[in-house]
């Protein structure tokens, strides 16, 4: 069970064909388990502290749902395009993988740009920075942590696109791409929670 299976184009998909590949995938799922706890703790802190606005603005005053809706659409779409990339990978279509991953990155960049705009808007218009209140601190740390994850994902996937051109689709590059797409789905799921718990519930008040 710890040794390779059949060789060549076989039952096993490219990313699972080597022990290293299987190790990477399992290891990454476990890492995602740790990330669930990390974001879970941040969510718990946010839910516990969001009513403490320290005479500053609350979520219902701050949040602009239209922008957040656009951001959500961008990110959800980028998750879908990353699925297309994996499907291309399973068809051994290296070019297709590169294209879909590039679209994913572009959509993510759009998301990030809007988020940066959102944060700077809050700071300039409302003086709503990290130091204002427990609500502001938990907001920025939670949503900012997610944004940081998006930024890291952008850099990571961009580098993978580069590697794809240089080395092609191999048993070494395939697990990396697969794992990056797992990461991307995770980021997307976290955003769904943020959208619901932070923005929607915050807007309703």
């Amino acid at each position, binding site marked *: 069970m710890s*040794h390779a299976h059949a060789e060549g184009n076989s039952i096993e998909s490219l990313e699972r064909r080597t022990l290293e590949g299987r190790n990477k995938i*399992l290891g990454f799922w*476990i*890492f995602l*388990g740790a*990330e669930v*706890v990390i974001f879970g*703790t941040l969510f718990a802190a946010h839910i516990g502290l969001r009513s403490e606005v320290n005479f500053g603005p609350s979520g219902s005053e701050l949040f602009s749902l239209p922008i957040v809706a656009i951001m959500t659409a961008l990110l959800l779409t980028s998750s879908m395009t990353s699925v297309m990339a994996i499907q291309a990978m399973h068809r051994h279509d290296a070019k297709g993988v590169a294209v879909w991953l590039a679209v994913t990155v572009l959509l993510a960049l759009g998301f990030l740009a809007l988020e940066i705009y959102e944060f700077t808007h809050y700071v300039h218009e409302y003086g709503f920075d990290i130091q204002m209140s427990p609500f502001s601190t938990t907001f920025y740390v939670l949503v900012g942590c997610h944004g940081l994850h998006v930024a890291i994902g952008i850099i990571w996937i961009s*580098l993978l696109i580069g590697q794809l051109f240089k080395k092609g689709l191999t048993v*070494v590059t395939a697990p990396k791409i697969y794992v990056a797409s797992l990461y991307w789905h995770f980021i997307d799921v976290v955003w769904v929670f943020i959208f619901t718990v932070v923005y929607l519930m915050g807007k309703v008040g």
Partner: protein
Amino acid sequence: MAHAHAQASAHSHAHVHEHKKRYTGIMDWLTTVDHKKIGILYLGAGLVFFLIAGLEAVFVRLQLMYPMNNVLSAQQFNEMITMHGTTMLFLAALPILYGFFNFIVPLQIGARDVAFPFLNSLGFWTFVFGGILLNLGFFTGSLPDAGWTAYPPLSTMYSPGEGMDLYSIGLQLSGIGTLLGGINFIVTIVNMRAPGMTMMRMPLFTWTCFVMSILIVFAFSAFAVGLLMLTFDRIFGGNFFNPTTGGNVILWQHIFWIFGHPEVYILILPAFGILSEVIPTFSRKRLFGYTSMVFATAIIGFLGFMVWAHHMFTVGMGAVANTLFSIATMLIAVPTGIKIFNWIFTMWKGQITFNTANLFATGFIPSFTMGGVTGVMLAIAAADYQFQDSYFVVAHFHYVIVGGTVHGIFAAFFYWFPKMFGRKLNETLGKIMFWLFLIGFHMTFFVQHWLGLIGMPRRVYTYLDGQPGWNEMNFVSSVGALLMSVAVILLLINVIITMRKPADAEGDAWGDGRTLEWAIASPPPEYNFKQVPLVRGLDPWWLEKRAGRKEMTPAEPVGPIHMPNGSILPLIMSIGLFIAGLGIMYSQTIVAVLGFGVLIVCMVIRSLVDDPGYHIDPEELDSKGVKA
């Protein structure tokens, strides 16, 4: 990653020339990705921190030896207890256990290395630099001083110096290493067992590594967030725990203990695993109730996440919460008791040899059980209202940690020393050490139960004269600490004189080895197994010996063995993170950016530059030591 040639066809490395990077001497140790060397590094670093933390404890006890003493000022005392607890738990106990897991677990499952050798090295170096960062206070003059539990607002608004920043950032850095190690062990155990080794044929030591690692993945992540929040409050003006703006100090307590309680099970489960190896070996009998032991381990791990608020009984959570956590805490006694009885019955009708390893293993049983029963007493919420934050608690946790984990560590040290270094430690010195340590341990901590009951709170830098019993009991407690120190010194001497002896230990060094690590040379060759073994049942080496064989049955033909190259990148990445940490601490953005930049550049290099390692040819394969 090292595995047999049969898989080479699954690699597309053909176009990349493989080569062995030849490092020797110090560079070899700085760049190694070999689990055995990394294990020894963890043991070495852990031992250094163990000595430092022990010295801190001696200072604490010297200060408390007499009433109104002035060996340490109040500030220095608070720093010493904080550093003692923090260093012992994060930088000594856990790394030493990681050292044993790293060296032994791949051998026990018939693997040639862990799943992620590079990450293994990275985990070690981040731990080292996190530990250095935490201890920088000895040079900057401002050490953490709010207890290892760092409750705000004391740890935030009322600790303005850098001390607590060293705590929040130093532990964050070393925590990365711990998390990486946990993930590594889980994947190794799930994916890389030798043919025939089902989960229920794994040695208990490997099982406890597995469950402990799961606890680490979930618990350390929560703590990382807590430390992040502490850092934000302290350095970036955050309001998580700021009561003046509406923050909630109790939030820290919940997050800390959701980590902190699993942490103590992270520390004790490996000791349970060690016992389950040492006792059967030196009773010449298989572990009694293997299946129960596995389930008990899993239940303890699971329940360990359900009891955290028993550290918060006096916070005012209400009777419902208190009783629920109280009952959950009492429940953990059941699987723990199951283990105690199974060890005793392993020895029943056995032929017991009492060498030092087994003295520590068996000595664990009465001492740890005493600690366990005071744990049940503490679990009773309404009674805990009296016990909480008194010396009764200090007595309890030292009984389970020193009587438990430390005994386990010493047992493992004597047991696996020949496997790691090719020689056995001196038995006479070992036995003297054992008795000195045992007497000193009980002297120090037994009286502390009484001190707690007559009203001595914990974390007090001194006490008033004239309180009946306080002077005498504190004095006795301090003398015990000195005895334990002598015992540890004897251990150091033992190691030094032993390393001068020739490395001539047998593969099956104790003669009655049961598990796979005893089927290969002491110390093992670089590649561990010339041929991956075939496992026929529990205690696979014992089974082969009883069937009359002198070696394990191989599961594959002899062939070239793939080995990974070492790398200097983990060391550099850790230095980068260390620099970044300093930059954050002192609000020097450029320094922080520089530090993170180093990290990112290394990560990019690692990802872009493929290093396929090298192969060892069959002609070179013979029983060579670690320094192949």
